[in-house]
C-alpha cells in the first residue's frame, strides 16, 4: 500500500523535541568545527558536511535502539552522532589521530562504531545498501530482532546496488528501513537531471516496498513517521522505504563553494534550515530563548573542545599501517631505525 503523502509535523512532546533539537545542534556544531578544521588544513581529504540535513539523522535515529544498526555514506557524520558515536572519537578520526573511531585509519568517510550499531560510512556511493541488507539478513538468520537503517543520497538510486539491494530486501523480507536523503544534488549535478522515471519512491514501490515521503527538514515529522515505521519493520512487516526531502546548505565538500547552483535559490534555503524551524516550534511550545541558547552554546562548546583535543592528540604509531589487515598473510612491520 503505497503512501506518498507528505507527513507534516505531528503533535510532538516538547521534551522530545528538545532532545531532537539538541542532537541536531550537536551535529551542526560538529560539522562547523570540522569545516573550520578542514579549511585550516588540519583535517585532510574530503569532508562532506551534512549542514542542513540534520533533521533526517536526528529524527530517524531517535527511534532506534542501541542494538539496531545503520550504514551511512560519505556524508555520514550526522548519522553517527545521532546513533550515539562519541564526537570526540569522530573528530580524532577526522584529524587522523590515535583514539579515533578507527584509530585514524579511516577518516571522515569510513567512520564506524560497532558498539553503537554504526556499521560504517562508505566512500563508494550506494555500497552501503547491500551491506545494510546483509546485516539485516544476518539478523534474520541469527534470530535477532534488530532493525537496520540504510542511509544514502538521491545520487545513489542510479547505481545498480540500489535495485539489487531493495529487491533482495523484499525477496527475503528483511527488517530494513531505507532512507533516501533527497538533497537535490549528486556532487555538482542536479540529481533530477540524471534520474529517469518517477524517482526513488516509484522505484522502491515497483520492487515491492512500501514507500513514504517526509519533509526531511521537519524533525518532528521525521521522528513521527519513523516512529510508526520502525515497530512495523521490527514486527516482521518487511522492508520499507523513506524519501526525506532536504537541502545541502553547503557545497559538496567543505571546500566547494557550490557556484554551479542558483545562488539566490541556495541562499533562500537557509530559511528552511531545520534547526531554525525546530527552534521556532520550541518557542511556540513555550521554551525560552535562554534555554535554546544554553543548548546551542553547550553544543558549540563540546565540539570546539573535541576539535582542540583532536588537534593536540598524537598521530597513530606507524606500525598501525600494517595492523588489522588480515590474520593469514599479513605484511610484516619492520620498524625503520
Amino acid at each position: 500500500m503505497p503512501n506518498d503523502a507528505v507527513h507534516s509535523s505531528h503533535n510532538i512532546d516538547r521534551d522530545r523535541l528538545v532532545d531532537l533539537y539538541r542532537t541536531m545542534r550537536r551535529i551542526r556544531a560538529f560539522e562547523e568545527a570540522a569545516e573550520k578544521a578542514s579549511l585550516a588544513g588540519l583535517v585532510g581529504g574530503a569532508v562532506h558536511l551534512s549542514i542542513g540535513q540534520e533533521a533526517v539523522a536526528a529524527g530517524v535515529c531517535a527511534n532506534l535502539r542501541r542494538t539496531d544498526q545503520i550504514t551511512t555514506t560519505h556524508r555520514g557524520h550526522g548519522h553517527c552522532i545521532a546513533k550515539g558515536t562519541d564526537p570526540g572519537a569522530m573528530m580524532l578520526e577526522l584529524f587522523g589521530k590515535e583514539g579515533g573511531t578507527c584509530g585514524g585509519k579511516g577518516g571522515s568517510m569510513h567512520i564506524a562504531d560497532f558498539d553503537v550499531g554504526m556499521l560504517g560510512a562508505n566512500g563508494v556511493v550506494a555500497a552501503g545498501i547491500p551491506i545494510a541488507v546483509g546485516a539485516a539478513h544476518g539478523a534474520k538468520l541469527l534470530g535477532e530482532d534488530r532493525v537496520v537503517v540504510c542511509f544514502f543520497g538521491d545520487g545513489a538510486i542510479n547505481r545498480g546496488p540500489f535495485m539489487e539491494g531493495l529487491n533482495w530486501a523484499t525477496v527475503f523480507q528483511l527488517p530494513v528501513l531505507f532512507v533516501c536523503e533527497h538533497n537535490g544534488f549528486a556532487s555538482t549535478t542536479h540529481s533530477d537531471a540524471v534520474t529517469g522515471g518517477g524517482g526513488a519512491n516509484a522505484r522502491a514501490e515497483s520492487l515491492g516496498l512500501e514507500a513514504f515521503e517526509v519533509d526531511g527538514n521537519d524533525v518532528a515529522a521525521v521522528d513521527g513517521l519513523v516512529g510508526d515505521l520502525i515497530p512495523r519493520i521490527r514486527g516482521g512487516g518487511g522492508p520499507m522505504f523513506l524519501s526525506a526531502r532536504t537541502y545541502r546548505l553547503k557545497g559538496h565538500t567543505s571546500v566547494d563553494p557550490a557556484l554551479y547552483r542558483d545562488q539566490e535559490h541556495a541562499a533562500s534555503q537557509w530559511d528552511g534550515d531545520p534547526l531554525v524551524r525546530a527552534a521556532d516550534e520550541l518557542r511556540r511550545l513555550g521554551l525560552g530563548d535562554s534555554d535554546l541558547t544554553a543548548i546551542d552554546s553547550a553544543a558549540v562548546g563540546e565540539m570546539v573542545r573535541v576539535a582542540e583535543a583532536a588537534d593536540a592528540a598524537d598521530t597513530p604509531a606507524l606500525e598501525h599501517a600494517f595492523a588489522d589487515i588480515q590474520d593469514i598473510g599479513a605484511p610484516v612491520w619492520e620498524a625503520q631505525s
Partner: protein
Amino acid sequence: MSGMSVISYQEAALQAVAEEMRRDPRVWALGEDLGRGGVFGQYRGLVDEFGPERIADTPISEATIMGASVGAALVGTRPVVEMRFADFALCAVDEMVNQAAKARFMFGGQARVPMVIRQPSGMWRSSAAQHSQSLEAWYTHIPGLVVAAPYTPADNKGLLKSAIRCDDPVIYIEHKDNWALEGEVPDDDDYLVPLGPARLAREGADLTVVTWSKMVGVAEQAAEQAAEMGIEIEIVDLRTLWPWDQEMVFASVAKTKRLMVVHEAVQVGGFGAEIAATVAEHMAHVLVAPIRRLGAPRAPISYAKPLEDLLRITPDKILNIAQEQTRA
C-alpha cells in the same frame, strides 16, 4: 581413527561445506541455484539437510550476493559465497575489493569479514572468453584477501574447511575441469589443510616447477615424460597463492637451481611474475639457468576448439621449456 575414501574434487567440497555447517550454525551458503545443488552440483543435497535459509537461493545479483555477505559477516555470520563462475565475480568487484577486503582495516580492527568467495575458474569445455578465465592474480594484489587454489580432492576438502573457519575473506578458486577428478580424501570431519603452506607434489633434482590448480596435473604429466628423458622435475603445488609458501619454493630452487612457473592464467601480469621476481631477488646466485614463466598468451579465450586449444598449457609446452632450462 578415521580412514580415507576415494571421492571427487566436487564431493570433497560438498563434504567440507556440510561438515562446517554442521559444526557451526553461523555458517551459511548463498548464491544462484544453490537449492538445486548449484550449477556444478557442489551443493547437491545440502538444502535437504540445512534448509533454504542456510542454503539460500539468491537473485542474479552478484554485487548484492557479495555485498550482503559482507554485511552479514560484519554482524557475526559466516557466509560461503558462490559466484558460479569466476567471470561473474567481476560484477561484484567493489564489494570484494573495496568492502570485504578493507572493512577490518578501515574500521581500525572493529570488525571482521569472515567469508569464503568461491570462484569456479579456468578453461573447460568450449566456454569462450566470459566463462573460462583464471583471474587469481588480481586478488593476490589486494591487501586483506587470502587466495587459495586447490588441485587435489583432499586439498579441496581441507582448504575449504580452513577457509570457512578463517576470519579473513578468502578467495577460493576451484577449477571447473577438476570437479570429477578423484583422489583419496580423509573422512575426518576435522581434516584441515592450513592456508599458506604449499604441497610438494613430486620430488626431483633438476628443475623446480611451481604451479597450482589444474596445472599441477599438467605438470605431473610433463614430469613423467621428462623423467623418461632423464630430467627430474620437482613440482611445488602452491595451493594458496596469498600467502604463498616462499620457504618451500626457495628450498626446492636451492636444490634444483632451476625454476619454471606455470599457470593457466595470462602470463602478462600473472602471479608467476611475482614468484619469478621474488626468487630472482633472493636466489639469483644459485640459479644455473634463467627463470622461465609459462602462462597463456594475452588473448581472450576462443570458442572454436583449435583456437581454444592454442591457448592451453600442455605437457609439451612445459617439456620444451624444461629441456631448454636443463640443457644449460
